[in-house]
């Protein structure tokens, strides 16, 4: 990933280490130190808040800026994230998706980037390492054409720590695809301007709307860039959504990120047994492609949205967006929360899940592979004593020693 980012010739990289993205910026720092990535300044900062703040400064002075983070690091950046998008600065950031504590957990889910879905950043989700690599190259072009920041989200550990074959483009290919950064706005000591003025009620809505307008433009631009990318590199990567065996599908599973690979394998197995099931992968979650999702799902009898994040108090985040895309269409909709905190999403579980969905045996909100005994024991403890103690520690005692299983 570091090599792919380096091919995009970032001029300023400001980053603070946090698993599971650390090795990406570590390798970039080596490329900068060795002179392989030049001209580029690698700025060590004291926190993620500083990383994004320095990226904002760098981008405003006309430098192509890149950073990466995950989990609590993304949350620590939150205030600056809104500034980057509000100011319209085309920063590209990798989010190596990881759960959010408490309880502390370093493993993969989508809670971090989903929490920032309304921060004004474009969010692209990668299914494979090849796509993550390709999306970074597309992201710089998208960000700079619209002057808006882009997050490339890739599943922490599952993708970031996997070794697999990828096609690495050449510098000449990337240079031809991604022209040098031409900023729309530039801080220059010789020609001073203000970026980030206070805006009162007379103009605030208009400025804010422009961020939305640019994301609506991105709905057009993302497929165009993906088509250009295919012409230049010969690979189908990016775009708004990706459909798999949906033509005659009665049941369609919708998901984001690397779990789509496991879902596709499961679909192939179920198709052999005659089940009409397909999948839709969302690459662009922000902007959310309402029209494309409606066109892809509208003919199905039921839609199962598999989400790696939980909106506590309601259930699904992606589901709510999908519901909006399907306004007025009558079909069964299921939300499945899966893989939180790195719980493996297995083909065996998906097999059962899709079979239950196809028979309409699912609850509207389902938690995949939830250990209800453990949950109910803790609920019982809460009922039986006011001083029932901390949930996580109680449950860890019930579950027993970790690392005892084969996986």
């Amino acid at each position: 990933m570091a090599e792919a980012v380096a091919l995009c010739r970032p001029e300023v990289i400001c980053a603070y280490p946090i698993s599971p993205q650390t090795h990406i910026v570590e390798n970039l720092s080596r490329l900068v130190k060795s002179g392989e990535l030049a001209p580029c300044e690698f700025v060590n900062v004291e926190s993620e808040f500083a990383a994004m703040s320095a990226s904002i400064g760098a981008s405003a002075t006309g430098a192509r800026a890149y950073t990466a983070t995950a989990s609590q690091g993304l949350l620590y950046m939150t205030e600056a994230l809104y500034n980057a998008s509000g100011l319209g600065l085309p920063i590209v950031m990798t989010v190596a998706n990881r759960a959010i504590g408490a309880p502390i957990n370093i493993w993969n889910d989508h809670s971090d980037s989903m929490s920032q879905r309304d921060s004004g950043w474009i969010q692209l989700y990668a299914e494979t390492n090849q796509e993550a690599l390709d999306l970074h190259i597309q992201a710089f072009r998208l960000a700079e054409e619209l002057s808006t920041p882009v997050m490339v989200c890739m599943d922490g550990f599952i993708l970031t720590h996997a070794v697999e074959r990828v096609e690495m483009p050449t510098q000449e290919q990337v240079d031809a695809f991604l022209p040098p950064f031409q900023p729309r706005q530039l801080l220059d000591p010789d020609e001073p301007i203000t970026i980030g003025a206070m805006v009162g009620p007379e103009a605030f809505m208009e400025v804010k709307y422009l961020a939305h307008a640019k994301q609506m433009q991105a709905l057009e631009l993302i497929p165009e860039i993906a088509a250009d990318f295919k012409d230049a590199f010969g690979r189908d990567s990016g775009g708004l959504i990706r459909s798999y065996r949906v033509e005659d599908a009665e049941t369609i599973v919708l998901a984001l990120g690397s779990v789509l690979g496991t879902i596709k394998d499961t679909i192939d197995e179920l198709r052999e047994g005659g089940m009409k099931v397909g999948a839709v992968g969302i690459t662009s979650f922000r902007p959310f492609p309402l029209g494309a999702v409606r066109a892809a799902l509208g003919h199905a009898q039921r839609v199962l949205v598999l989400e790696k994040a939980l909106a506590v108090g309601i259930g699904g985040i992606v589901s709510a967006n999908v519901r909006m895309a399907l306004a007025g269409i009558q079909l069964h909709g299921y939300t499945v929360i899966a893989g939180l905190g790195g719980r493996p999403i297995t083909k065996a579980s998906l097999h059962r899940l899709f079979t239950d969905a196809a028979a309409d045996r699912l609850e509207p909100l389902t938690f995949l592979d939830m250990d209800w005994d453990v949950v109910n024991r803790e609920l019982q403890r809460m009922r039986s004593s006011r001083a029932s103690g901390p949930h996580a520690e109680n449950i860890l005692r019930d579950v027993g020693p970790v690392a005892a299983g084969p996986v």
Partner: protein
Amino acid sequence: MFEVRIHGRGGQGVVTAAELLSLAAFDEGRYAQAFPSFGSERMGAPVVAFCRIDDREIRTREPIIEPDALIIQDATLLHQVDVFGGCRPDGFILINTTKSFDALGLGDFVGAFRAERLLTVPASELAREHTGRAVANAALLGGFAALSRAIALDAVSRAIRERFGGAVAEGNVAAAKAAHTWVMDELRELSGATPA
């Protein structure tokens, strides 16, 4: 698809072993996917790493639950972690130890398995002999190439040289070759004892 699960402890190069195996598969022009069981980034803690090898693109991202082959780098895990979970009787098992399956207390358990697919190999000793360190991962891959035929020794050697350089690479290549020879000899002896 051929799925390999490698068990060991933090610091033994378990994750590197899975990565080397995937590089060896790439070297043979095949698809591979190596990944660790995440989180146990401590010396001595039980670690699991996975490698899938296939002739077509590998899409699934689940951990390997029913491995075709098991490599156990640290025999002290045998009675501590459920290393054999999901193993099928036609699977390959290679354990790094100087002891036999019987001496490890596994005689009854492995009775159901195919004898020519089970082997113990003194990989730490071979590694120490050839590299000066008892890091058995490369040696085990050499032994694994001989036992499973899922990968060629030459591809393993090239993967080791791709990942490491100089004396470290050559020592590990020598250890892998020694373990390969050791396993081939064992298999020959075994087939002599039970004529096909």
